[in-house]
């Protein structure tokens, strides 16, 4: 077992059920994506899903006419987040590939919408989740797909 994580071997060993992420999927079910760093990725996607979905529902239900483009894009973002969360929880090779495609799409979306909002602010009377590359969300929207892609690619080599 090559410990790829930090080398500080604490006396109280962490459970042996799930070995280190990179150290052969010994005890855990093959293709499982929610383990090790994957848990953190899933958690953040879950938070973004809840945030984006509830925000979209509220905005579209109450004030869609004010900024249709922005709210429609927020809804798209919400669907993408929810789908990625679902595939990550589900696990397996097919889900992993689907999630990888969606993470790439998400990254493209963030970069496109981010640039769009900066170039043509007049088209967006109100902010979207992806405005200014996710500035309103501590840049998580632009960092999360990168982390997700990293984790999903790494899960393949480990499996």
């Amino acid at each position, binding site marked *: 077992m090559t410990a790829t994580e930090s080398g500080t071997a604490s006396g109280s060993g962490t459970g042996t059920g799930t070995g280190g992420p990179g150290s052969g999927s010994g005890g855990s079910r093959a293709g499982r994506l929610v383990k090790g760093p994957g848990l*953190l990725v899933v958690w953040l996607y879950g938070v973004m899903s809840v945030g984006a979905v509830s925000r979209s529902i509220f905005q579209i239900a109450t004030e869609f006419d004010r900024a249709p483009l922005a709210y429609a894009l927020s809804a798209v973002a919400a669907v993408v987040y929810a789908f990625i969360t679902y595939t990550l929880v589900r696990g397996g090779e097919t889900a992993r590939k689907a999630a990888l495609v969606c993470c790439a799409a998400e990254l493209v979306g963030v970069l496109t919408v981010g640039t769009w909002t900066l170039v043509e602010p007049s088209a967006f009377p109100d902010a979207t989740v992806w405005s200014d590359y996710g500035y309103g969300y501590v840049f998580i929207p632009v960092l999360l797909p990168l982390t997700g892609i990293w984790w999903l690619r790494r899960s393949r080599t480990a499996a």
Partner: protein
Amino acid sequence: MLDALTVAVSVAALALAAWCGFAAYRNQSTKDWHFIGMAVVTFLALVQLVVGIVQLVRGEKAEEGGTIFVAYLLGALCAVPAAGLLSLTERSKWGSATVAAGAVVLAVLEVRLYDIWTVG
């Protein structure tokens, strides 16, 4: 709303984030003490939810709307316990890191709650 309460929840959340972040840094999973810490933070968030709803019922208005305000209060209540339950399924430093992330989310929600309540 009660500013002191918002500040208290924020500080407690950041302290929890630092504590669990430190555990993750030291390669440790969440321990009983961490869960007691989570319980304290969750209790504060629960008090905040009750106080917030009471204030709305008494006729005070949230600047950005009562629905959003209550939605954020519920989100603030769920953030840390949800991360804590997840950390039970991952008995490694990544469980601790997830709780730390959940506490940071709570702190961010507190800032938003303040914005939603007061005139921007």
